[in-house]
């Protein structure tokens, strides 16, 4: 009954370092999403995927990369960490991309870039 699992929960990076945020879901959902949430703001879509091998940019993709080699996994890569990427990152999934399909979220990764 895991749903969407994100690792790590917390991370501190130095400017210029790189890291991968992991996301996996066990619901066999086709659609997966990465969001970031900044203080006082709504969730902003970074990238999304409609199925294995297919990804597309969201509203704020700059500085990030994704891949989707399997249905279950959707990792988010930061290549050159910048202070502006300090945020809470949420991964989500949904069975379809239909507007009436609610998304299931992981518990988030809190990332600080110093």
């Amino acid at each position, binding site marked *: 009954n895991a749903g*969407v699992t994100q690792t790590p929960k917390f991370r501190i990076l130095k400017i210029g370092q790189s890291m991968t945020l992991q996301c996996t879901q066990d619901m066999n959902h086709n*659609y997966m999403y990465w*969001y970031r949430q900044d203080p*006082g*703001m*709504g*969730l*902003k*879509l970074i990238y*999304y995927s*409609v199925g294995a091998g297919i990804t597309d940019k*969201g*509203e704020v993709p700059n500085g990030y990369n994704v891949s989707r080699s399997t249905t279950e996994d959707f990792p988010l890569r930061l290549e050159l960490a910048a202070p502006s990427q300090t945020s809470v990152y*949420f991964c*989500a999934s949904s069975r379809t*991309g239909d*507007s*009436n399909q*609610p*998304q*299931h*979220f*992981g*518990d*988030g990764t809190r990332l600080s870039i110093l």
Partner: protein
Amino acid sequence: DQQVKQNSPSLSVQEGRISILNCDYTNSMFDYFLWYKKYPAEGPTFLISISSIKDKNEDGRFTVFLNKSAKHLSLHIVPSQPGDSAVYFCAASEVSYDKVIFGPGTSLSVIP
């Protein structure tokens, strides 16, 4: 420009009373609206939704009202309980659009 607005960052309500959370949107192409609830250190969880062809949807203590002409929706919680204390996000999507637009959230505190 924010397409989905929640103009009240916070709201405090006495236990047992009604909580009303408001949401305004600007995009007339939105056809589906959802409310998510978020506790600290957890991800958002789906609460209730409404299609643009309806003006009301009810699920237990939670009711969402939609006023399309005013581009406004509201979430009513009756009666409010301390466990309802959380951040509530309003979200909207278009019929042929894979993406959902989230508002900034309203933090609800239900005081025992």
